């Protein structure tokens, strides 16, 4: 596990106030790896580089937050890592599988079987009730969910009473919990969460984050979350900071204050 107490609240990186070097964490296995990833949009004069050579590793069983100011490339990084978008150069690995270079059909299967998503706007399918939404990725893959695991998830997320409700009949927090259940049910290698609390009030947001963290702690689920909210980031084991398309540092066992502090340094 990468989030040992030894590294708690340590701040490493080029803007690090004390200049410590990054500790070696050889014990961890990589769930997702990016190697010299570049992403360029547009052509010629309109060219904008969203990612300028990113090297980053996300360990198995860890809850990592990607942070950075608007336009830092954090969303693009997540899209590229999740196989939603192509790279201009470099490689992305999911476990031992090289994601870059897979065709659309293989990418689709990869996403279906090995990746879970939680979106800011929940993105539940309005025509389906909560249960059907949760089971959707499994149904698409023609796999039947592990009933015990399903019951376990539904219970932990407090959705037992809401399974027959349509998304429009659920509160924002409930919808996001359904989305988390949907992401967790296939036991993906990694769950990507894109601003999962962006559309929620602070109480519901805290609930959702606790549940994501619990899934990491209790079941060893790997979670990568993009956020700009220091409070949300403080739930993570590790924060990767991005600025202008490059890795600008990282933070282990963050608190709201340490994240704010790091962000201030980024800005300054």
């Amino acid at each position: 596990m990468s989030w040992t107490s030894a590294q708690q609240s340590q701040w490493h990186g080029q803007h690090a106030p004390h200049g410590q070097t990054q500790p070696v964490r050889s014990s961890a296995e990589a769930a997702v790896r990016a190697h010299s990833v570049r992403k360029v949009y547009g052509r010629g004069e309109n060219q904008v580089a969203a990612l300028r050579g990113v090297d980053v590793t996300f360990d198995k069983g860890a809850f990592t937050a990607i942070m950075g100011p608007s336009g830092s490339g954090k969303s693009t990084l997540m899209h590229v890592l999740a196989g939603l978008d192509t790279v201009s150069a470099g490689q992305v690995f999911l476990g031992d599988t090289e994601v870059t270079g897979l065709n659309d059909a293989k990418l689709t299967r990869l996403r279906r079987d090995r990746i879970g998503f939680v979106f800011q706007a929940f993105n539940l399918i309005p025509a389906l009730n909560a249960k059907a939404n949760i089971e959707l990725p499994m149904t698409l893959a023609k796999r039947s969910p592990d009933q015990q695991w399903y019951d376990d998830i539904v219970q932990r997320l407090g959705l037992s009473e809401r399974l027959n409700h349509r998304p429009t009949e659920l509160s924002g927090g409930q919808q996001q919990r359904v989305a988390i259940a949907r992401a967790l049910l296939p036991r993906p290698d990694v769950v990507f969460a894109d601003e999962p609390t962006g559309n929620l009030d602070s109480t519901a947001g805290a609930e959702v984050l606790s549940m994501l963290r619990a899934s990491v702690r209790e079941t060893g689920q790997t979670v990568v979350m993009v956020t700009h909210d220091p409070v949300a980031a403080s739930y993570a084991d590790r924060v990767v900071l991005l600025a202008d398309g490059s890795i600008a540092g990282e933070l282990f066992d963050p608190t709201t204050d340490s994240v704010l502090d790091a962000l201030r340094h980024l800005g300054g």
Partner: protein
Amino acid sequence: MFSLSLAQLRTQAHRLIATALAIIIAVGFVVATLTLNETSKKTVYGALSSQYLTTDAVATYDWEQTDSESPTPQQWTQIGEKLRALPGVAAVALDQYSYSRVQIEGVPGATYGQVQTLADSDLRWQKLTSGTWPEGDGQVVAAADGSAKVGDRITLTLSAVWDAESGKETEPERDVQATVVGLTDRSSSIIMEGDQYWTTPAQNQAWNAQDVESIRIAATPGTTPADLTTEVASAVQAMPGGESLTVRTGEGQAEAVARSVSGNNAELVTVLLVFAAISVFVCTLVIANTFTVLLAQRVRELALLRAIGAAGGQLRRGVLLESFVIGLTASALGVATGIALAAGVSAIASQFESVVPLNGVAVTAQPVLIGLALGTVVTMVAAFNPARKATKVAPLAAMRPMDEEPINTGRGLVRRALGLLLGLPGIGIAYYGGTSGDLMLGAVGGMLFFLGALLLCRWLVPIAVAGVGRVLGPLGQVPGKLAALNSTRNPQRTAATATALIVGVTLCTTMVVGAATTRASATALIDDSYPTDVAYYVGDEDAPATLAGTISGVKNVSAAIPVEAATVDIGSLPEYSVQSIDTTKSASVVRSDKAGLIPEPGTIVLAEYLAPELGIKEGDPVKITKDGRSIELKAHLVFSSNVNSPRVTSTDLAQLTDQTQMSEIWAQLADDMDDGQLAETLRAIATAAADVDPNGTLAGSAEERASFNQLLDILLLIVLGLLAVAVVIAIIGVGNTMALSVLERRKESGVLRALGLTRGQLRWMLLWEAMLIAGVAAAIGVVLGSVFGVLGVKAALQSSGAVAISIPLAQVLLILVVATIAGALASVLPSRRAAKISPVAAIASA
């Protein structure tokens, strides 16, 4: 708002293509119909005005203007002679004509043609395109669109002439020979049907041309047509027979004839416009649908405009302005399409002898303005309700994150109640009209029921689609299940899309089922009237006795027997021809004889109308006498049109006389021939018989069935062609709905792709959805159409005999399948676009 509306149109142009297409087709249909009507009028008037170009005054017998009898041929000639002497008259032409059987040498078969008198010099309006004018005897010019060519030898069979007073035949029927020396241009014969020939006045007199069309008069220089007309009019009043004549100027006559010709076209135009109206109605549904979705997508933008101070009314006016511009632009294109279509039809029609005379294309202001106004108004009306709803949006909607699309479940209780109120009595009235043979009641009931059904569609279609989707869902696997759910997400839109298709499919099925039922009923009627497949009426008394053998030798003829006839006295009726049936032989050619048209020994088959004359009832004895010998037979009365002459068995007749002659030949054809083989066999029989008996005619159930089926098939084809326009528009509507659904669910498609739906599955999902909507709509249409078809034919034909209900399953299934596949095809382009959506869209546009 104006500039904003225009900007909207520019950026959303691609979303409006389908709407525009629907308007273009509907407007094009209307404009083409109206333009063809104008063209026909102008063609007729053009031909007529050239016909009366040199004519200053015309005296005709116009039965609409007088109650008197027309002048006799002699009176006509005298009137012509007297007019010649009037001052101011330069020339007089007596336009005589007669009808003759015309046979062109080397061309098989004969036609009926009109031989007319060619006026001298000034009053000759025909234009020669090749050859020369007829000079002496035996020379004619022919109209260019007939079958004759310059140099052809023709044989005219001149009818016998009877004296009007004594009723005696003064001249028998005779054949004369003539040579075609020239051809006239097409306009010379444009308003006449059949072949036209012209010859010199003297020759036509010699050919017994006695009927007079008109007397045309040319004025001397210095006399105006009006003055001449007044002079002639008062002059003819004083002449014997002349009081019944109407005198007009040449121009006036051209207009009068044109009016009467166009009057006939008016009915055709009305029928065409009914079909056009159906297309316009379907188009309205499609447009309304499109606007609903377009505006739903813009809720946020509309809300933003409200937030920055736009009034609801302003937004509404803006949307209506948009619809105005789309309507006007598409209508303009529709008008152009319609005119081009009319020009095409006219060009094709002028190659053939068409029912409606057409030449070139006449573009007048009226069809153009009607087309523009119709398209624009329909678009604006269709857009009004969506505009009203969309602009009710609260300004705050712009501030909130975009919610999931609002699902409008619209209770529509009023609509449902109204639908039931119209539909239930409607079907009752239609059923009553159908069973009692009252066409008016049937039509009214049918329309009420259809209106009711359309109103109920919004309620029933989503239920039906959901039900079918649930049943068939497992077949389509996960995408199929999703599709079934999606298709009912917006019940209102699904219903409107389906309704457009239901209208088209219902009407098509009505026609197909109606035609099949008519065919079955008519076939039963025909079979009842003819006990045999073929009845050949022998033409000449001296036709060879081998004729039956000749006919039975034709391929696909299984048997043929001669039917003899003799002249006998039947009761009080002297010298009556009776047919004798050899019942031992007739079994080989008689298929069925439900009506009892074949006599049994000891009976005589008589037409009903003879019963009062003979003073008998069914089963009464009738005395048949010949040369002093007589026998008594039992009368069997049958429907008058089913027998040409009384029939007895040959054994009964043999007791009276052996002096018989061949009257008919009855034949049976091979079973299970298709229409083509049947027609071929009948042609072969006619050809084989014509060699030895040129004046014979062919009848019988096969012949009647064949010609009736042909007529029905042509009518059905035309009507289906016209209805197809409505179906095409409806299918465009399905494509449109799918395209807009794709746009609307862009984000959702992205999410599904992110969650692992493959491109193929996404396409399949949309295909499935389109097929569900189209299939359910087609199924409803097919059921409604079958009911209408059967009831319609029942109402129309009940009075003329029993109606045999026939639903052509194969054809009806074909309609269902074609409509479903067309709906699926309509979704291909939208689903391709949807499949291109990157999964990133799901997150990026959050």
